[in-house]
Structure formats: C-alpha cells, structure tokens
C-alpha cells in the first residue's frame, strides 16, 4: 500500500503535469512492485488528512516491540482540489495497484495538450475512471497545469520520533521539463549527522535525463532513458497529437495505415537507458544498462511489460516480465543471473483483485459474474481466436468506448480488495491482503518460509490507514 504522502505526491506530479515514470529509475517498476511489495510488520496506524488543497498532514503510530511514530507535513504550491483524500473515497487502485501503465509522453512532445484526462495516477485508464477520483483529478489538472506548472513546488518533512530522524524533501519545478529534487535525512547516528541527495530531472518526453549528487561518499550519478517505437516513434508522434487529443478513443479511430498496422500487432513503446555512478570519496562506481518494452494503454491485447537490465561490471543480467493477464490479475516473473559467479535467482509475483467484501474474500476469487456482465470491459475485449491467428484485430467496435465513458458514473467501486503473493527461489512466500473496510484501508501481510515449516510465519503485520 502506498502511503498517503506518496499518494499526495503522485497527485502533485499529475497536477503539475510531470511524468515521474519517464526515468531510468522506474524502468522495471512494474515487476518490482509486483514482486517486491513491502510487507507490513507489526501494527501500524496512519491518520492522514488533506486539510486544505495545499497542505496535508499525516501521523503514524507503529508498534514492533517498541512503539514508534512519525509526523509528516506536506505543502504544495499546486492546489490539489478534488483529489480524493478521504479513505472511503480514495480509489483503491491508486493506492494498491502494482501494474503501471505507461504514461503518455505526448504532452511534452506536442505542446498542445488537449485534455488532461491522460493523467492516470498509475491507473490503467479503464480502471482509474471507475471512481469519483478520476473526474475530480481531471478537473484539478488544468488548474495545476496552467497555474503552477512552471513554478510549482512541494515541501515535505517527516519526523520519526523515538529515533529523532528527520526527513526532508523539496521538489521544485523550474520549467516544463526541468525539475529539481532535494532530499535530506538528518540523524545523529549518521556520519556527518545526515545525508543530502540532490536530483536534477530533465524530461523531454522522448527522453529523460537525471543527474544526482549525494553528500554521502560524494556520489555522483547520471542516468537517462530514451524512448522509441510505439508512440515515441516518428510515425506515431506524427499521429500523436491526434491520439493525445482524442484520448483513448484514438485507439479505435485509425490514424493511418502504418499506425493501424502497428496497432494490430503488439503495440508498445521501447525504452532504453543506462546509469552511471561514481563515488568521488570512496573511488568506487557502478553502472548498468537497461531496456524495456511495454505495451501502451491503447494496445488492445494483453498489456505486458518486459525489461532487461545488464550490469556489465558485475556480470549481472536481470530480466523481468509482467503481464496484466486480466484486469483483476497481474503476474510477474523475474530472473537474475550472474555470468561471473553463476548465481541465479528467480521470483514470481501475483496480484488478484476481488470485488467481494473483504470478509468473503477468497484466494483467486473471480469478480462477481454480475459485475462482469455489467462492467463489460470495454477496451480489453478479447480478440477472437480467429483474429489472433490471423494476427489482426477484431472488427472495430465503437460501443465499448461508450461503455468506458459511462463507467465513471457507476456509483459503486469495482474492486474491494486485492491479494498479492510472491515466491522466490528460497521458497519464501510473501502474502499481502489489502482492501477497504468501511472507511479504513487495511493491509495485512505475512512472510512465510517454507524451509522452516515448524514455524513458517516469519513476520506478520497489519497496516491501517485512515484519511480525511
């Protein structure tokens, strides 16, 4: 579960029209979140509030043997009006969903951005629309877009009480494509009393570059990501304004012969990037190269994301594959291999959404057939077998789009909970069950070690979050 402040920060990004995913750091975010989701430990209560559109507070109380807590405040110059901050209104996928659809890189390529409706807040568009949050965000975005896009900033501070640990974060936007982040941690036990990390992000849509400097070890780094193919290709970009303006509906309307053909096949975007670090004080460094292919939201088939990262210095090869098999089911696998030490690792992760009440939640429960019928998935309509064999799409059906438009009007939420599980080669299992009860969002997790069946439960935790 994403923390409230994380959620607000994402809202800030979207409100200020910043694509936080267009960076090399997030190259394999989907698989990482599907497999390496954090398990709650102990009991943890969070009380949060978006008091005004500019100001949010959050209080945490945790108990893992000892009681600890934290207080955090957040200020943003961009008014977050309309962001669903109440825990009974927050769209669950925004907090819980792991699979990340690609953001549209169009807006920054083409200055004329038609509708802010592209803001997905990590939601596949067909999911994100389902609650009141999406429309409200849609309304918010223009204000942020026009008002504070170039000078928007965010201040965030968090104090962990028993440890006397202070975290600070400043995000300042200098121009449409330039953003600076400054994060700092202060604690007595740290060397020099704390560390400072500066991050300069330059996002041109087609490519994104980051430079960073850390006071710890004098670490300097640079990383970049370059997008090509799909909507980033010249052909697509030519058609991009139209598709961007049209939003999802552009998928249905053909944009030309080539584009049509592209879309018939697996339609996605390639990204490649690399990172390079050097510690000026400890004279050590590191680097890696990576590539990703991910289907675009407009792809009609099964959304998938595949990444491959290589660390030539350490001989590490890491491949991940994540797929949104159904809209209620995501799967991910990861393989790692080291060509020097011949060590290998694998891990699989899974995410199942349920529309049942948490009490009736069962592993692998299918969505209620009733809702299945009602909410005929508009965009992920299965291609007919014949169409697949012939490597083409079914005949275009304009109706589903209309259905998608209608969906937000549905009063009730589609999903009520999600079950996540992972398994790695050490036979360690992580189980996480998240959902909403009344106005509380809970997260119940446990780690299981199959190698020690006498006491398999290695950890157990419950996270409860309330916000207003």
């Amino acid at each position, binding site marked *: 579960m994403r923390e409230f402040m994380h959620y607000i920060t994402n809202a800030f990004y979207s409100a200020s029209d910043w694509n936080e995913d267009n960076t090399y750091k997030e190259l394999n975010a989907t698989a990482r979140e599907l497999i390496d989701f954090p398990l709650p430990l102990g009991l943890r209560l969070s009380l949060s509030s978006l008091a005004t559109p500019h100001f949010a507070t959050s209080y945490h109380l945790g108990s893992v043997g000892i009681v600890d807590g934290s207080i955090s405040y957040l200020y943003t110059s961009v008014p977050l009006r309309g962001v669903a901050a109440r825990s009974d209104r927050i769209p669950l996928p925004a907090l819980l969903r792991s699979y990340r659809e690609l953001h549209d890189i169009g807006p920054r390529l083409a200055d004329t951005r038609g509708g802010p409706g592209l803001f997905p807040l990590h939601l596949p568009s067909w999911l994100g629309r389902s609650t009141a949050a999406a429309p409200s965000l849609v309304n918010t975005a223009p204000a942020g877009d026009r008002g504070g896009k170039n000078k928007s900033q965010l201040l965030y501070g968090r104090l962990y009480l028993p440890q006397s640990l202070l975290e600070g974060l400043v995000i300042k936007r200098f121009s449409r494509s330039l953003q600076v982040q400054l994060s700092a941690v202060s604690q007595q036990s740290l060397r020099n009393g704390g*560390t400072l990390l500066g991050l300069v992000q330059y996002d041109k849509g087609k490519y994104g570059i980051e430079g960073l400097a850390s006071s710890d070890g004098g670490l300097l780094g640079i990383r970049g990501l370059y997008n090509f193919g799909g909507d980033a290709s010249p052909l697509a970009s030519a058609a991009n304004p139209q598709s961007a303006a049209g939003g999802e509906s552009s998928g249905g309307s053909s944009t030309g012969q080539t584009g049509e053909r592209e879309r018939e096949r697996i339609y996605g975007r390639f990204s490649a990037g690399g990172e390079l670090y050097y510690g000026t004080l400890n004279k050590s460094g590191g680097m890696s190269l990576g590539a990703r292919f991910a289907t675009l939201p407009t792809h009609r088939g099964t959304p998938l994301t595949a990444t491959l990262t290589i660390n030539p210095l350490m001989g590490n090869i890491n491949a991940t594959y994540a797929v949104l098999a159904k809209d209620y089911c995501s799967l991910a696998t990861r393989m790692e291999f080291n060509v020097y030490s011949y060590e290998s690792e694998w891990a699989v992760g899974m995410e199942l959404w349920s529309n049942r009440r948490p009490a009736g939640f069962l592993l692998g429960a299918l969505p209620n057939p009733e809702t299945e019928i009602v909410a005929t998935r508009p965009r992920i309509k299965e291609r007919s077998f014949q169409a697949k064999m012939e490597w083409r799409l079914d005949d275009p059906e304009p109706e589903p789009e209309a259905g998608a438009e209608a969906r937000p009007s549905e009063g009730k939420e589609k999903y009520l909970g999600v079950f996540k599980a992972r398994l790695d080669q050490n036979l360690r299992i992580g189980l996480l069950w998240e959902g909403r009860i009344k106005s509380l969002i809970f997260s119940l997790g446990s780690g299981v070690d199959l190698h020690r069946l006498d006491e398999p439960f290695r950890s157990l935790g419950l996270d409860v979050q309330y916000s207003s």
Partner: protein
Amino acid sequence: MAFNFNWSPLTADEDFYRRARDLLTTALNKSPKPPIIVDDILVTEFNLGSVPPDLEILEIGDLAEDRFRGIFKMCYSGDAFLTLKTRVQANPLNTYLCSKPSFTSPQPLAAASGLTIPLQITLSEIKLSAFIIVVFSKQKGLTLVFRNDPLESLKVSSTFDSIQFVRDYLQKTIEVKLRDLMMDELPAIIHRLSLRLWCPDQAPKDEDEVKEDEKETALNPLNSPPLDPVDPSGHLLDPTEITSWTLDGSPEVQSLFSQKNLMRVTSLTGSRLTSSLVNPLMQDAMFRAWAGPSERLDATSTPVSTPGLTRTSSFFGNPHTYSFSDNDSQHYGLPARSSMVNLSQATAGLSLGSGRHSKAGRKKKNRVVNLRRKTSSEASSEAGESISETASVDAPASEPIMPIREEPEEEISATNKVRFRPSMDLLQTPRASVETKPLEASVPVPETKDTATPTAPIRLPETLAPTRISEKQQPTEDAKVPRRRPGPQSDTSSVIMEQAWIMKMAGEIARRVYEEKTRNPALWEERDDAPPPAYEAA
C-alpha cells in the same frame, strides 16, 4: 622458578583442532557482520604450528590456592596459521547502499546488483608481542587483559592476492579487526570460558555455578569419565573417597586429567586467534589452587597461611610437567632431576648453610629477585599498594602472609635470601624431615625448574619454595592433582580476594612494568632466553 610446557601435545590433538575451529566459527559469526560479508565465516583450517611462543613471567602479584595474578610477557613468531572461508559482496555500490537511509538513496536500478565472490583468507606469519595480565580467582574466573596491542605483524593472503588494491585493503582491515578482537573480545571470551570451566568445580554453593556446571557437561561431551566423577565428588564427596579413588588409579587418572585440562585450556586458546600461551599459565595457577587445599590437609605443622603456600609451591613444580604431558615429565623429568639435584645441592651448599630445601627455594628466589629487581626496584618506590603487591608476589611461594609483609622491603634491598631465611627456618623443620627422607626427586623437582628457568621462556618467580613433600605424596603426586580440585572448594571460600582489588593491583603493576620497559628496554631484552629443551623434546 620456571616451568616447561610442551607445545606439540597441544597441537597434535586432532580433536582439539576440531573444537577450536568450531569455537572460532561461532565466535566469528556471532557479531553482526559488515554488509560486505554476505555469508557465514567458516574456519576451515587452523593450526598452531610447531613453534611455541615465548612466555616470560614478569611479575606475580598474587599467588594463593585459589587465585593468581601475574604479568607475563609473550612473544610469538611461529608458524601457526588460520584459514577462513566466506563470501563477500564485490559490488561497492551494493555495500554503499546498505548502510544508508533509504530516503536519500539514489536508488540505482541495476548498478547495485550483487556479485558475491567466495573468499578464502589465510592468516599466517603471526607475530605477537604483548604484556598480558592474568588475574585468576576461583570464584571470579580468569581475567586476561592485554596491556598493549599484541599484534605486531601478520600476513594475510587471500584469493585476491593478485589484485594489489584488494590485498592491501584486506591486510589493513583484518589487522584492525584482529586488534579489536584481541583487545576487546578475547578477554571477554576467555572470562566466560573460564567461568564455565572452573567455577562449577569450585563453587557448588551458587546456583549459577551449578548451572554452569551443567552447561559444562553439556558443552564438553569429550570429558573423560574420571572428570565427571571428580567434579561432583569435589562438590559432594568426602576427601577420603577422593583420595582412595585417586590412589587407585593415580597415574592414569592424572593423565586423563591433565589431558582434559589441556583440552579446556586449548579450547580457551582456540577462542582467540593467537597462540595459547596464556592458558598454560592458567593451568598452572589452577594446579596451585588445587594443590593448595590438598596439601593443606596434610600439613598441619606450619601456620594456617603457610601450608597452603608451601604446598602450592611444591605442586607448582609438578603441575607444569603434568599439565602438558605426563609421559614427558616422567621420562625426561627424572634424569633431569638427578642432575638438577646435584646442581641444587651444590649451589645450596655454596650459598647458604641452610638445608638443601631452603637453598633450593632460595635459588628459585634468586631468580625471582632478578625479575623483581627490575620490576620491583622501581615499583617499590611507588605507592604502598605496590609494595604490598610485590611482597605478595615474592612471598606467595615459600612464605606465609606474615613473612611476606616484611619481605618486600628486603626484596627492595635486593636480597631475597635474607627474607626467606626466617621463613625458611620456620618451614625447615617440616621440610627437613620430609626432604631428607623423601627421594631426591622431591628436591630435584624444584631444581629442574631452576635449571630450566634460564632457558625456559616461561619463568615463575621462585616465590614458591619447595614444600615438604611427604613420601606418600611424591609417589602420588600425580594423583594429588585430581584431589586438589575438590579441595580448593573448601579453601577457596576462605581465601577469596576481591576481584576489584586484584584488578586494580594488576593494572598498577602492568603500568609499572610497562614504564620500566619503556625506560630501559635493554633489561627486558636480556631476559629473552632460548626455548627450553622441553620444546625440542616435544
């Protein structure tokens, strides 16, 4: 006085090495490891080598049945080696991120991916030079402290020797770690082990110690059958039973016993990476303590305090041979004794009119005096406490507490003989009766020590005068050792010293010694003697 110990029996025992490896492995994995070490540290090879360390007794601050305090100088440059295996993280970025707060982490995508490399490190050519303060009390266990940094040099060879940078780094890091280990961790480990080993024997009264006893049994499955009866007997059984038992199988039992003790001590030594010189010393102290009680039972003529001392001294000679190898002591100890006897007699005749015994004692004393002069001459000038300490050091062997106090001043004058005479006179009567009758061997025992002292790296101040050893005792000397164990329990209660005081004294003495050495190192260097023949024999 000096005593020899055989290095090879220590090192030839396969079982000892196995347990030492286990101990080392657990000790190395106990504390949280730095992020660069990603696997358990396994001790795959461990060998103490064939070259024994040089151990020199600089000062004995306190000596009694149940306690011992002394300062030793240890030098070692042998062929011991130790091989460790583990896996290390080769990616510096990975280890860099481990210790940093995640909030300011640069969050590299794959640059921090790990590469673990198996690493084998061999530590060899270890050179040690240290002043060791040993404080032993039956009830408080053994406290061992290095007064200075014991590690002189060390050769680290690893899988990465071909890479200069890595090799230098490992060399530096391991040296630092080893220094920390020896200065901080080792004393604690030894103290814990000593509590486990000795306290159960001595103090059945305390519940804790009983527990420890249980632990000990559990921990040392290797204990030979005789030991187990001894411990319980020490607590519960009457001395008569013990004596009978010891008499019956005295030689065998002794051998078993000494080996066991060796094993324990070796385990102690194993706990530290360096040679085990200190432990043999501890054994001797233990022997005295044990011997003291048993002898005390026998000796009734001398004042209460004296008997214990005299006996301790007498046993002192024996234990050194026992502790390391019974056979050796018997084999070459006897011939040596004969020659030694002659020497001792001659010297005695020359030097003093008193009986052989007294002379023998004096000779030892003389050696003590030498040691002391250097240390005590300066020390004596210092605070009264020091004087008392020195006095106690000198006195413990031959003389009871009362004479001790007088002696220190005399010692300062530099003539031990004078001091001892009065005490010797007191003691002579019993001794004379005993010694004349007893075999020459009784006398020789101390003599052997005397001869050995010059050569032997380990010297004890001869504070211990040869005690009168009854004829019975001599044949059964070996047997007595086991007896003494039970005995000390009763004695210890009476003779307990406050640990704090001991520590304090030890600290002062150590300081003085160190100062002395710094002032005129030449004096100290003179003392380094060639290793005693015993080593070669071994």
